[in-house]
């Protein structure tokens, strides 16, 4: 007997009892659908996060320098005592150009930017989420202090005008460069370069616009290109604390350890350990941590789904055993007219595998829908199941059929022809 015939027979037998087949498959359908939904949604989310991280540039090292001691300044505000460490860190990092791409303060500040009718305070007020969790209105941009290396550190390319320069830093120039999304929000399609805007009631000139880093500009956290950067030295006019967070970007991933150890050595000599402290840490640790957490949640959920698959498989075995008992006479007839044991095993194994395979296909369809729905509900984005997950789910369901079909199939083949023929 060839395999094609065996498949035809199995299909006939399943089609002959459609209602029962659907009920039998239910366990597998639910199991596969939930495994696919969970695995796809989690891995899809992780991939999106990764994409965002990568768009912002990789090989980032976070440097934090802080003071314990606060003093009162002339305006009566309490500010951390001690000097601005950035110029020292800047020149140190630029002394190892073979390892480092650049260094910049990594501090955002709250600001109000006004241009014509556009006003960030108004945007902040109007922006909200609807009941489905979708953002409505325009998100106000974030404001950053940066060095002339802010662009290279953030994997940013200039689209129009120019980047911040060392001269801007040195001369406290009231200039700004816009991220692509911020430029679009404020100026639409017009060229912002050369325009003057009000930032906290101080005039700033837009000198450049960065190119967009991500295609998908409406992800859950808002666009990563929705920002404004000004020279960190204009803090003198805008006010605020001395920067304490910096980002150093390494040329190569392999050099990060070396840079971290050099910075640790350098800062040990620079920062007074009695009044302050520092730490240096690669940022991808945060990414690793996120991946680990997601992996763990996914693992637990997939475990639960796997148990439901097991139960589904046992259901298949149960029904196959009933089928074998019901069809004892048929098995006897087949044996009498020349079916070998192996033909009977093949027939029932293929039937079980096909039952599970069809269940798997239905489960996959539901899982795809579930995955897209879950992505929309939880993460506010459409996640499609990946090809390996889909193929894996199908393979798994067929495998379950074979595993749980084995016992009934072998049992069927062990029947003595003469006894099987006697069955009613």
């Amino acid at each position, binding site marked *: 007997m060839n395999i094609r015939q065996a498949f035809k027979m199995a299909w006939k037998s399943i089609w002959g009892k459609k209602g029962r087949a659907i009920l039998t498959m239910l366990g597998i359908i639910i199991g596969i659908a939930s495994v696919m939904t969970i695995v796809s949604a989690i891995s899809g989310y992780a991939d999106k996060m990764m994409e965002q991280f990568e768009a912002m540039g990789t090989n980032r090292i976070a440097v934090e320098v802080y003071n314990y001691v606060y003093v009162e300044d002339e305006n009566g505000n309490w500010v951390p005592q001690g000097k601005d460490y950035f110029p020292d860190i800047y020149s140190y990092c630029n002394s190892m150009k073979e390892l480092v791409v650049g260094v910049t303060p990594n501090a955002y500040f709250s600001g109000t930017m006004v241009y014509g009718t556009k006003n960030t305070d108004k945007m902040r007020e109007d922006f909200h989420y609807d009941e489905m969790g979708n953002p409505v209105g325009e998100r106000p941009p974030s404001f950053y202090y940066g060095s002339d290396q802010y662009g290279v550190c953030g994997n940013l390319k200039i689209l129009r005008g120019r980047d911040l320069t060392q001269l801007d830093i040195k001369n406290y120039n009231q200039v700004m460069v816009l991220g692509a999304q911020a430029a679009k929000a404020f100026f639409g399609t017009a060229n912002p370069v050369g325009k003057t805007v009000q930032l906290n009631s101080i005039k700033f000139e837009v000198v450049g616009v960065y190119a967009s880093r991500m295609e998908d500009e409406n992800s859950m956290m808002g666009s990563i290109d929705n920002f404004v950067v000004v020279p960190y030295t204009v803090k003198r006019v805008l006010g605020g604390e001395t920067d304490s967070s910096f980002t150093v970007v390494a040329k190569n991933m392999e050099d990060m350890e070396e840079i971290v150890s050099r910075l640790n050595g350098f800062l040990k000599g620079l920062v007074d350990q009695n009044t302050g402290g520092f730490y240096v840490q690669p940022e991808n640790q945060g990414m690793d941590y996120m991946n680990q957490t997601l992996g763990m949640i996914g693992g637990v959920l997939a475990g639960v789904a796997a148990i439901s698959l097991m139960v589904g498989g046992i259901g298949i075995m149960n029904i196959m055993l009933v089928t074998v008992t019901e069809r004892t006479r048929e098995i006897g007839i087949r*044996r*009498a007219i020349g079916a070998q*044991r192996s033909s009977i095993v093949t027939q029932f194994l293929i039937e079980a595998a096909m039952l599970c395979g069809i269940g798997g296909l239905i489960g996959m369809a539901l899982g795809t829908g579930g995955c897209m729905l879950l992505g929309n509900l939880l993460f506010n984005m459409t996640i499609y199941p990946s090809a390996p997950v889909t193929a894996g789910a199908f393979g798994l369901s067929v495998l379950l059929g074979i595993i749980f079909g084995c016992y009934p199939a072998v049992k069927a083949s062990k029947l003595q022809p003469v006894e099987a023929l006697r069955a009613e």
Partner: protein
Amino acid sequence: MEKLVELKDVFKIYGEGLESEVRALDGVSLTICRGEFVAVVGQSGSGKSTMMNVLGCLDIPTRGDYFLEGTDVRELTDKELSRIRNKEIGFIFQQYNLIQTLTVLENVELPLIYQGINADDRRDMALEALERVGLSSRIKHKPTEMSGGQQQRVAIARAIATRPPIIMADEPTGALDSRTGHEVLEFLQQLNREGTTVILITHDNGIAATARRCVRLTDGKIVEDKEQEVDWF
């Protein structure tokens, strides 16, 4: 004449050694040659069905030798026994034993499927067999949609589709009215005239009388084995 089937002192004992032991076959020796038409006749419980199961390689004797075309059947593996049932023997049962979920054509094709014959040849062979029993117009029907006589003709078509040298018929007329039963017996005669060896199991002396040779079984023993004039009822 060439020996086709040879039983030598064959026993089939259920529950051997127990007080309740049943000797379905109790030292049976029988030789059947190629081309014979043999009726095995006996009352219910005489062991005639057990004999057919043993002869048909559906059951294995407890003791004794069984040679089929010179081969010792007790030496054969399941695979080889399956091959013999498939190619050497065509079975016809009292209850037809058709598979209800398959169509007439598929039922007749089944032994050919197990032989591994390709779809086109298989269909031709099955159609030819169905034509011989006069059912070529109802090949798409399910057995349940047919009368008992028609179902038995399908079973006969299935038995002859592989062109086996031996036909074993176990009470083939038992579930049929006398006219249809007569047709079945006539068909078996026809097959025998064409060279097929026919072994007919029956409890009915009238039916046994249609065979040239009659073997009578009582309590698992052969009590009579005679050549006779064929007598049509």
